[in-house]
């Protein structure tokens, strides 16, 4: 039997238990709702406008840098597994790979794109 069956079972149990807790609370809890209770919380004062907030592009830049590094690191995992048996050539390759990656980081940094403000 594949070990993924157990992962599937874990996902199932991981769903069942929180759902069970929330359903139990839903059964037990009082349900006396009114429009005031349902207003959006904003420190007790009247809600101003809708929840639309303009985000700045910086969020995107950080997510972008993260994405690139994430993919690169994933590439390195098979390399790391086999490092002991592959010898010096593989080590040099991995270091070249990381250095190319660092060039990108240095560029972003030097251009001032890693600044939050």
């Amino acid at each position: 039997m594949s070990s993924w069956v157990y992962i599937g079972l874990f996902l199932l149990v991981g769903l069942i238990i929180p759902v069970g807790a929330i359903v139990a609370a839903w059964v037990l809890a009082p349900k006396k709702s009114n429009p005031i209770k349902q207003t959006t919380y904003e420190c007790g004062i009247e809600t101003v406008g809708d929840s639309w907030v303009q985000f700045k592009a910086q969020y995107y830049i950080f997510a972008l840098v993260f994405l690139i590094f994430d993919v690169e690191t994933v590439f390195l995992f098979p390399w790391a597994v086999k490092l002991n048996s592959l010898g010096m050539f593989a080590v040099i390759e991995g270091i070249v790979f990381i250095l190319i990656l660092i060039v990108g980081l240095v560029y972003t940094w030097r251009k001032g794109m890693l600044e939050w403000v």
Partner: protein
Amino acid sequence: MVPLSWYLIFSAALFSIGLFGVLSRRNLIAILLGIELMLNSVNVNLAAFWRYGDVTNITGQVFAVIVFAVAAAEVSVGLALVISVYRKRNTVIADEIDMLKF
């Protein structure tokens, strides 16, 4: 055991849905979502061919990993362009971005 043809038909369906999204959506980001579906269907094919061919030959998985990298590069540049266009033209509707038309 699941026959190989099921995987291939599944990935063909996924590819076609993605193609429909790319051809018919107006929003640029939605078009990119369709492209993601198409790339995923390719990966399903590669993994299925690896499993049903010679499993010691890992080429299918190597290709799939490269597809991940290409997808990451594609989506990062694509969305950056969308954001840049949105900043200049204040729209993300593909039909309205017609600067090159005239």
